[in-house]
């Protein structure tokens, strides 16, 4: 064990780009088919912070659903961080991921969360209003990301890692 590890679960609706973000950020140890078969895919990455500390994030990419069923609740067990992903071009996905956050907090009251508004590269088509984003920033860290270009991905993971360090 070279670094402290934390379990992080990634939640979001269908097609919001969770797997693309994982592909951008992590090493992709396992095939995507696990998402459709088992419903989850686990990867890890050690995140080095500016202050010299590091943290290993073990990321559970949970298949997109509107609500957490029993299996997904099992997958959440033991998680200390959440990566919430919404598609900026579909405002409905924001409502879904916030609903998932509420559900997860009922299971994990102390869990830390970061919201990623994905598809920044299609910002001209965004349905999420800037005012909504500004409102969300009061409740939790929000990052506008693009899995396609990589914009905002690293800072989002770094912020989550920073919040999980003791």
């Amino acid at each position: 064990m070279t670094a402290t590890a934390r379990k992080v679960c990634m939640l979001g609706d269908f097609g919001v780009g969770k797997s693309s973000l994982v592909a951008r950020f992590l090493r992709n140890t396992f095939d995507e088919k696990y998402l459709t078969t088992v419903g989850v895919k686990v990867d890890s990455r050690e995140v080095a912070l500016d202050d010299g500390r590091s943290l290993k994030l073990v990321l559970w990419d949970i298949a997109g659903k509107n609500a957490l069923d029993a299996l997904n609740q099992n997958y959440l067990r033991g998680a200390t961080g959440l990566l919430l992903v919404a598609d900026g071009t579909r405002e409905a996905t924001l409502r879904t991921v916030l609903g998932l956050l509420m559900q997860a907090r009922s299971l994990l009251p102390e869990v830390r969360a970061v919201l990623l508004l994905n598809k920044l590269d299609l910002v001209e088509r965004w349905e999420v209003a800037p005012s909504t984003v500004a409102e969300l920033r009061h409740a939790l860290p929000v990052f506008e990301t693009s899995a396609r270009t990589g914009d905002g991905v690293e800072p989002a993971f770094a912020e989550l890692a920073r919040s999980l360090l003791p």
Partner: protein
Amino acid sequence: MAEFERLRALLLDPERQRLDALEAARDGLPQALPAALEAAARGADAERLARALAEPVAGALGSAVREQRQTIVDALFPIIGPAIRKAIAEALRDFTEGFNRALESSLTPRGLRWRLEAWRSGLPYAQVVLRHTLRCRIDHLFLIERETGLVLHHAAAPDLPDLDADAIAGMLTAIGDFVRDSLRLGGGAAGSLASATVGEHLLWVIEGPRANLAAFLRGVPPPALHAQLEQALERLHAELDNPLQGLQAGAADAGAAFAAALDPGALERAAVQPERPGRGPSRPWPLLLALLLPLLLVLVWAAWRGREAQRWQARVQSLGERVRATPGYLLTAVEDIPCREIVLRGARDPDAPPPEGFLAPRPPGCEAAVRFEFQPVLSLAPAIVAARARRLLAPPPRVVVEVDAAARLSLRGAAPAAWIAAVRAQAAWVPGVSGVDDADLHASDAARGAARAELARLDGELAGLRVAFAPGGTGADDSAALVAIAERLRRALALAGPAGLQVRAAIHGGNDASGNEAVNAPLRRARAEWLRAALVQAGLPAEALQFATDDALVPPTAAATLPQRSAHVRLILEDADAKP
């Protein structure tokens, strides 16, 4: 018309051009199809293309096998040969390995060691062989925090590449949850994924209260390995029971304990160690047999040695008794080294039998050298004194030499007068002789002369004694003459020894002057035979009576008288030394 054509062209030209293009495309299809298939195979519809082509390609292959068999054979030839050779090589390698293993386990010290281990532990021999020969290796060991799925410790075989242990542990946890949820066991249920097999790889998941142990194995694990892993996990839970500092992901101080408890090599070695005595069904008799066998051998050896020693003592004792019982020997000591040497010490008269006679017959048992150490001595034993007298006096054959218990030398028989004179002077000086008795010793020269003279006299008397026969008769009734002849013959035969002669009787038959020779010769013979038979009947030995020829002793004369019509006996005297 022209307007019609123009109108027609206006209306149908686009359609005609499209038809022309379609025809051109159809004509160019053979040239375009390969490129189109290649593009499709590289594109997103590659799988669809494969599904579409599967059935026609299979059908085409079937038709080709039926109709163009040689082409198919030629095409497959470069593939089938190496494939067959590889399969044969693999089979031969497996056979060779199995054969070598069987040989090794049967005839080598390792095989004998395994058999001893099977006897000692009570396990079947095959199980011991399997335990030693089946290869099993722990590729990876993951100690996974049960709640989070995070890796607490990861150990791997040294030659394996690095992998994302956290991701694998997470997926294992997720799959475990997935299996449990699929079977609707619920989160708190005890059941879970305990093992999985993929080819030669095996996954074991052993659950603990706060951490699970996942082992990736290769090969066939020994039965004890699972128990070893369970014990290791239990030990970790017992030693690190503080949930804040012990089995928590990232607890640095637990690393050493994890590494010590989860060393793959140590666990493998512990799993193949023989079971401790008492854990399995033990069979003590092989051990007892192993202990008793040497003891039995020692007892047999001791019994054999005792019997040999007894036999040896009997042999030594017998030899000593034989020497002591032999006149002329005085045995003072007998020393022996069993099966090596016997030494007899004492004294021996030179006239006693040689000691080599005691060596025969050879007794049964081990070989040993017999050594005699006898000092010379003069024995007074009568037999030895007699032997000494014989050696010193050199008596002639007809003289008997004896020594009685009082050491008195007795000489009997006939001997030359000169020898008798000498022995009367020397006999008393023979060592051990206390006196000499020579009363029965007589000079052989005078006796012989007298006997011979008497024989001559008897022959003369026999010449005058005749048994008369009637004329032409072959039987007589002259008993007085017959008795007289028999008496003299008996005396003559008795004098043969003293006279030193061989005495025989020649029987003569006679006839008178009448008759011719053809009649008289058988008559003479018949009369001689009658007399011989009568003498034999009177008790004389037949072998001493022979028929004499007329020419030899009594030639017939022309003036034969009555007394010639008779039969008579004459003596034949020959020197006894001439005919042995």
